[in-house]
């Protein structure tokens, strides 16, 4: 059904500056339907800022950001963009600390976001089933009634990934999912993301090279707000400019 020949997300010449500092500098990117892309780059390269632009948190000064060819994301607000089918996991895990794990997933669960609908919403078997299933996937089944604020850092990361799964967006933006995880957890997360990528498009930002290697997908290297190199991990690792950026200082 989906036309795999056209881009799901298309960025071209995106410029963002903060008080004269250019965080994004003519950034261009093209993500196809069903593709998973890893984005790497040194600190301050603009990876998170790129996600801010895509999700409507930051308005670019210039450039094009198109989703599914027809939607100009620079004209929409965060909620509208989320409802188009773009979900995001934040670099610093952001869950609803006062809510239980279960309620965090419930709030994320794909569905009607309107006021009146949620005023009269009642618990129902399909939603419960979906939440149970996700709890299993993210291994938080034993913690469903715990306040999310009481989870460990790694568990919060998982919960946020679970919220992404619950949202079931067309495109997932995942910012540093394995920061603070053990090696075993990192491996599981990579497997999980690969599984998600089977029927979703995913952009993953990560510094952990073993993790990126495990994903085994095309890699884009950002540096000073624009694309420095693109290709397989081996290709970009062999790229002289990439080596220079990573080692040269």
């Amino acid at each position: 059904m989906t036309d795999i020949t056209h881009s799901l997300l298309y960025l071209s010449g995106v410029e963002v500056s903060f008080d004269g500092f250019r965080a994004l500098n003519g950034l261009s990117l093209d993500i196809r339907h069903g593709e998973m892309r890893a984005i790497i780059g040194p600190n301050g390269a603009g990876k998170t800022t790129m996600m801010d632009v895509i999700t409507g948190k930051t308005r670019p000064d210039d450039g094009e950001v198109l989703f599914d060819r027809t939607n100009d994301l620079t004209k929409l607000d965060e909620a509208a963009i989320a409802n188009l089918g773009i979900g995001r996991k934040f670099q610093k895990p952001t869950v609803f600390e006062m809510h239980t794990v279960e309620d965090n997933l419930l709030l994320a669960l794909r569905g009607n976001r309107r006021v009146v609908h949620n005023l009269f919403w009642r618990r129902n078997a399909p939603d419960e089933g979906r939440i149970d299933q996700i709890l299993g996937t993210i291994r938080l089944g034993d913690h469903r009634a715990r306040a999310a604020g009481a989870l460990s850092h790694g568990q919060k990361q998982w919960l946020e990934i679970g919220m992404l799964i619950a949202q079931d967006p067309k495109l997932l933006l995942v910012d540093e999912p394995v920061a603070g995880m053990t090696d075993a957890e990192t491996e599981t997360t990579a497997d999980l993301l690969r599984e998600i990528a089977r029927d979703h498009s995913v952009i993953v930002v990560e510094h952990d090279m073993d993790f990126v290697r495990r994903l085994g997908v095309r890699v884009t290297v950002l540096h000073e707000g624009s694309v420095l190199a693109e290709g397989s991990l081996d290709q970009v690792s062999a790229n002289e400019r990439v080596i220079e950026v990573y080692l040269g200082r």
Partner: protein
Amino acid sequence: MIARTFLTDDRRSAIFLGLLAIAAVVVPFCHLVFPPSSLLHIGTSSVALWGKYLSFAILALSLDLIWGYAGILSLGHGAFFALGGYAMGMYLMRQIGSRGVYANPLLPDFMVFLNWKELPWYWWGFDIFPFAALMVVLAPGILAFVFGWFAFRSRVTGVYLSIITQMLTYALWLSFFRNDMGFGGNNGLTDFKDILGFPVQAPATRAALFSITAMTLMLCYIVARYVVASKLGKVLVAIRDAESRTRFLGYRVDAYKTFLFTLSAAMAGIAGALYVPQVGIINPSEFHPAQSIEVVLWVAVGGRGTLVGAALGAILVNFAKTTFTSGILAPYWLFVLGALFVLVTRFLPNGIVGTFFDVAADTRSARRPAHAGSTSASGRLREAESEAPLK
């Protein structure tokens, strides 16, 4: 179905509603049936006084709904209360008819005094009770909706929002003082004669007004409780604690806030409408910013984010106020109020009910097999969580 949810799943609600139901019957009964000589008699002034406390409890409840559950600290909620009060006052004024000092069948006395020849258009229809009752809800509701629409769309939050709510009530305070506004200026609306054909001062009317206020408080509580326990309530708490995260999930934060703010303002309007016939007057002082700040104190003292606490805080603080301001301690009331606020926020940061409930919940969960959920770091708003289950 709703009643079952509340009465079986939520002991605190059941106790609160039960007490109100008892008061709604017993107070009028003692007022009307026992002769004044009897020990069980409840005097006219007491009935009116407690009726006033209960209307304040509704106001406090309405503030707790937005402050406790959506983090919107309104420092101008008295404005909505006063608007509801004025709508009721206008109805009561028009019921006076030709019994006023100037015996004008159409114009209230203050208009005759100002030499006005005809009734301003915005007084039209207030002789009809259902219309006035509708205005009690619509006037504050529409103002809140318009205010919320602009403020929440522009993402005004926190202290800035509090300041503009304060400015709103301040502006209304200044306006309602003016004679040419047509609301009785400085003196406001008073000298009411009857309501729905019953004399306002008669014991039976007072008893009925008390009962109605108690039942309205019950109803408002049930509505508020339903809202906070619904999925919408969970969205609100999410907005309160991580507003932008909620947006990234696709929720229109401004729509949620505007809805709640409007609901809360309508509730405050109803509180004002019940207040006016029981105290016999509405004047611009109700718009004074200090009034609105007092409401915040009631809620803080009783326990923000607990609903029951807000209502009890209103009753308690106002009971104390009456006690203090009527004796030799009168000059010290503001010091007492200030001290109360400092002590409660210092030693009972969850308010009286919040603290009590936490203790009760801890003892209960200690008896139950280990089940986390009471492990959240800061306890202040925890009850918002633990009382949420919707079965």
